[in-house]
C-alpha cells in the first residue's frame, strides 16, 4: 500500500486508496490539522504538524514520552488555554462547518461542547453515578428529568456500563472499580453527544480485562464517533485504530493507515520505535 491518496470534494477529503472506496481506509476527514505549532510559554512543544483526522474512524497517536502527542490532543479542546502564556500557530479545522478550533476568534467553549475527552486515570466527580453522566447535560441547561434519565441511560448503555450500574445509579461513582470508573468517564463524555472523542491513554491504568472492555467499546463507538486515542501500547494502537500518527520531539514523523505503519513503516525512526530499537 502506498501513502494515501487525498481527493478533495468540498469539505470532504477522502483518505485511502481511491481504488478501494469501500475499505475502512476510505473515510471523510472530520478534522484537518494544518501546520500546527504550539508553545508552552517560551518552550515550543509542537512543530508544524499537518495531519487529517478521519471521520468515524479511530486515529491512534503513538510516540515516546514527551513527544507531543498529548499536547497535540489537548489542542483540540483548547485545554491549553487554561494556562497563560501558551500559544498556538496554524489551524485545526473542524468539519463540516470549517471552524478553526485554535483561532483566537473561536470561543473555546465551542470545541469543548463538540469534543469529548477521557483521560489516563479515571476522574469521576465526587457525585453519584447518575450525576456524573448528567453533569455535561446540566451545564448545557437541560433540566427535564425525563430527558436526563433517557440520556443517562443511553450513554451508560453506549459505554457498556448500564447493566452493571442500573440498580445503583445513586451510589457514589467511587464505589465502582477502576475499569468501571473509566467507562463511566466515557459515558460522561458521550452524554452531550460530541462529534469527536479524545482518549488520552484511557487504558494505561487498567487491568487486561478492563482494557479489553474499553477496546471493544472503542470499536463499537467508531460507528458513530470520530475517535482520537493517545496510547503507549503499540499493540493496542495496531488493534483498534485504522490510522496512526507517530510523533517524535514535537514533530509528526509519519502518518498512514495503521496496517502499513506497523508492518511496513516508511521512516527509519518509526521502525526503530515500533520494533523497540529506540535510542
Amino acid at each position, binding site marked *: 500500500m502506498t*501513502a494515501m491518496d487525498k481527493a478533495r470534494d468540498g469539505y470532504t477529503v477522502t483518505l485511502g486508496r481511491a481504488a478501494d472506496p469501500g475499505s475502512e481506509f476510505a473515510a471523510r476527514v472530520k478534522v484537518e490539522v494544518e501546520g500546527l505549532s504550539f508553545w508552552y510559554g517560551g518552550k515550543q512543544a509542537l512543530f508544524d504538524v499537518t495531519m487529517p483526522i478521519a471521520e468515524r474512524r479511530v486515529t491512534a497517536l503513538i510516540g515516546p514520552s514527551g513527544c507531543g502527542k498529548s499536547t497535540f490532543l489537548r489542542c483540540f479542546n483548547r485545554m491549553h488555554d487554561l494556562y497563560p502564556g501558551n500559544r498556538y500557530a496554524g489551524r485545526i479545522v473542524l468539519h463540516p462547518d470549517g471552524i478553526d478550533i485554535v483561532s483566537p476568534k473561536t470561543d473555546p467553549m465551542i470545541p469543548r461542547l463538540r469534543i469529548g475527552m477521557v483521560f489516563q486515570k479515571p476522574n469521576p466527580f465526587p457525585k453519584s453515578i447518575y450525576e456524573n453522566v448528567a453533569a455535561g447535560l446540566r451545564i448545557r441547561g437541560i433540566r427535564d428529568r425525563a430527558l436526563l434519565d433517557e440520556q443517562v441511560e443511553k450513554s451508560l448503555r453506549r459505554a457498556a456500563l448500564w447493566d452493571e450500574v442500573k440498580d445503583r445509579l445513586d451510589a457514589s461513582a467511587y464505589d465502582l472499580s477502576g475499569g468501571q470508573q473509566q467507562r463511566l468517564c466515557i459515558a460522561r463524555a458521550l452524554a452531550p453527544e460530541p462529534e469527536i472523542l479524545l482518549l488520552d491513554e484511557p487504558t494505561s491504568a487498567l487491568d487486561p480485562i478492563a482494557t479489553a472492555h474499553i477496546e471493544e467499546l472503542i470499536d463499537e463507538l467508531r460507528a458513530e464517533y470520530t475517535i482520537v486515542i493517545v496510547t503507549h501500547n503499540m499493540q493496542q494502537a495496531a488493534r483498534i485504530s485504522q490510522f496512526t500518527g507517530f510523533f517524535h520531539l514535537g514533530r509528526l514523523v509519519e502518518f498512514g493507515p495503521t496496517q502499513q505503519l506497523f*508492518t*511496513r*513503516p*516508511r521512516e*527509519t525512526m518509526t521502525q526503530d520505535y515500533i*520494533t*523497540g*530499537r529506540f535510542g
Partner: protein
Amino acid sequence: MPESGEGLPIRKHTVRSFDEELEHLTRQIVHMGALVERQVAEAIRALVERDGDTAARVVQQDDEVDELEEAIDQEAIRILATRQPMAIDLRMVAMALKISNDLERTSDYAVNIARRVQRLIEQPPLKPLVTIPRMAELVQLMIKDVLDAYVRRDAERALDVWRRDEEVDQYYNSLFRELLTYILEDPRRTSMCIDLLFIAKNLERIGDHATNIAEKIRYIVHGDLINRMSRDVKK
C-alpha cells in the same frame, strides 16, 4: 510513490535478548538450509557415482531436517507470542515460518531423488549423465545464493536467484523431450527413464522452492507482496 520503506537500517533492540532470539532464528534457518543444500548435492553425487551408501545417507538425513523445521516453527511462534514483533521483525519471524517449510519440501525432493537413485543403480546405466548434473549444479547454486541473500537481507541477490529459475525450467523441458525419445526408441528402458524424469522434475521443484524463498526475502526487505516478485521483472 517510491518504496522508501525498503532497506531501512537495522539497529539493535533496547532489549538485547530479543536481538539474540532473532539472530538464533536466522542461524537455525541457515543451518537447515546448509543441511538441505548438502542433501541435494549428495543425492546428485550418488546418482552420478552410482553410490548407494551416499543415497542412503541422504534418506536418513530427512529426520534431522524435519526436527529443525519443528524447532524453527516453535521458536518463531514463541517469539510472536512473547515479543509481538512489529515491522521488519514481524516480517522476519513470519517468513521464517514459511522459509522453513520451503526448505523442508526441498529436503523431501532430495530424499525422493536419493530413493530413485537406490533403484536406478541396480540396473546398468543408460548412458553417461550430462544434463541432469548440470541442472543440479544450477539448482544447488540457487539454494546457496538464496541462503546467502537471506543472511545479508539482500533483495537484489534474491531477485537474481529468482531470475535463474527460468533456465532450470528450460533444462527440465529439454530433458523431458530427450528422455521421451529414449522411451520411444526402446520401451524396455521406460522404467529407468521415468525415474530419471522424476529426478529432473524434483530438481525443477527444488528450483521453485529456492524461488519462493527469494520472494520471501524480498518481502522481508521491502514489505510488499509476499508471493510474487515484481511484475515488471517477469517480462
